[in-house]
């Protein structure tokens, strides 16, 4: 549990995903956040081969604003391995960023193993309306744009640029949503032109995810094959979305460059795209030679806001640890129109960590 120092054979410590579990529900059975999270933590720990007492860092994420409960993390302490006290932090937002923080803490030597959890019940409120509160509170939020409308601005810009058409969006939709043909997708009415219903992710009732991270010594005790985090980087763009080019993602291009992904072989890419057109923007911005894109189907069919990014990382890690992939990349996003983006590079073989920083 205590810090072990930087030097291991091979240089700086490296961290791996050694356990992952998630659950998405479309119907509530009356379970609380803690009741939804408990079995997912159990499964992730079981998959990792570590026990509760091995965990020295716990990083959690949820949306208090979405649940309406100030200090909601207090309710889930029951199910977190926080006794005796450990390094614990909670962030308001997307779980993938809690994983980034846990990764940093392990690299800094604070502990040998971390548990990362995210939980969300997006239908507890009108989250699409509440997301408007992420915008400039003086100039934009009072206009109360709904999240589909903002995304549609971006989709419209993409169509107007001539690079993609609504048919391309429908191609993504039919690939991700089972049983929906391309023509059937195109026949759906607009919710916010040019976006149709199926172009927008289906908000799940509830979602939870847990990932176990381990630095070298603990990773060697993993029950399964570790998926090594070869690098991770995240960047944010301006909050004034009218001031950026919505048809491309400068932040993903930057993060991808630091991870040396352009032109690289990527066996699996998991993209956190709550809107079909965004999958195209993200894949273009990464620019790798992609084997399989969203083999998990991504978030279009089921989107537990705040957990979806963490699930992408888990899915990419699973592709490496169980699916035979040599290299997988997971993408996570936060904010309107892909304002903030995180890329996580996972590999089967442990190597020196890429310097993703600056």
């Amino acid at each position, binding site marked *: 549990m205590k810090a072990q120092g930087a030097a291991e054979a091979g240089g700086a410590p490296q961290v791996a995903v050694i356990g992952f579990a998630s659950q998405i529900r479309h119907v*509530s*059975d*009356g*379970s*609380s*956040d*803690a*009741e939804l999270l*408990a079995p997912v933590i159990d499964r992730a720990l079981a998959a990792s081969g570590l026990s*509760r007492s091995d965990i020295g860092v716990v990083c959690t994420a949820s949306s208090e604003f979405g*649940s*309406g*409960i100030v200090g909601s993390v207090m309710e889930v*302490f*029951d*199910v977190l*391995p*926080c*006794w005796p006290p450990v390094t614990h932090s909670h962030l308001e937002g997307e779980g993938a960023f809690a994983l980034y923080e846990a990764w940093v803490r392990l690299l800094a030597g604070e502990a040998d193993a971390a548990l990362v959890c995210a939980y969300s*019940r997006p*239908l*507890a*409120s*009108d989250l699409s*309306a*509440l997301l408007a*509160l992420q915008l400039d*509170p003086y100039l934009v*939020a*009072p206009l109360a744009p709904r999240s589909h409308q903002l995304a549609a601005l971006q989709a419209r810009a993409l169509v107007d640029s001539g690079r993609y058409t609504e048919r391309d969006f429908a191609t993504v939709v039919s690939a991700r949503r089972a049983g929906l043909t391309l023509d059937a997708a195109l026949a759906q009415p607009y919710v916010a032109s040019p976006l149709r219903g199926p172009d927008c992710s289906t908000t799940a009732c509830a979602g939870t995810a847990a990932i176990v991270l381990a630095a070298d010594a603990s990773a060697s005790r993993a029950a399964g094959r570790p998926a090594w985090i070869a690098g991770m980087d995240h960047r944010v763009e301006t909050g004034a979305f009218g001031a950026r080019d919505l048809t491309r993602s400068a932040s993903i291009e930057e993060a991808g460059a630091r991870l040396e992904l352009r032109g690289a072989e990527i066996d699996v890419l998991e993209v956190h795209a709550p809107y079909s057109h965004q999958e195209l923007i993200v894949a273009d911005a990464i620019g790798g030679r992609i084997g399989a894109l969203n083999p998990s189907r991504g978030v279009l069919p089921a989107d537990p806001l705040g957990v979806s990014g963490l699930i992408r990382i888990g899915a990419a890690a699973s592709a490496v640890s169980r699916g035979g992939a040599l290299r997988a990349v997971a993408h996570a996003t936060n904010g309107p129109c892909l304002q903030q983006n995180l890329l996580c590079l996972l590999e089967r073989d442990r190597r020196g960590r890429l310097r993703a920083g600056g």
Partner: protein
Amino acid sequence: MSEPEGRGEHSMSARVRTKYTYEPGLTLSRFLRALGERRVEGGRCPGCAKVYVPPRVRCPACGAGPMTPVPVGDRGTIVSYTVVHVPVAGSPTKPPFAWAWIRLDGADVTFPHLLGGVPVEDIVVGQKVRAVWAPDDQLAPSWESILHFVPVPP
């Protein structure tokens, strides 16, 4: 650098109305239903045998669960308390009133609830208390099925 002291020239109010659906959860719901029947049902940890009122989803100390329902009486002890002179806005109870952390006999943790039926100056840490239940027509799956706790003679 000079410090501007003035107030902003313009201000506007933008209302945000939102409805939230709260789920007490399965574990707490069971506990609340029991309160509606004038029963206190705690949870015993299958790992370390500690009794929690209200029951928790998992034992925060050892991680075991789910908890075994176990009847707990409605008498206990004041572990700590305070007298509220300035309550939160919207509080239905007129100040000054007291609330306390109460550990029921047989339980290993405390919970907060109102104290009543006693002048606030006469409350002391360590006092024995018992629940005052709501009348039949006010019973419901709710913490308010207990109106408050009142000190009992030692």
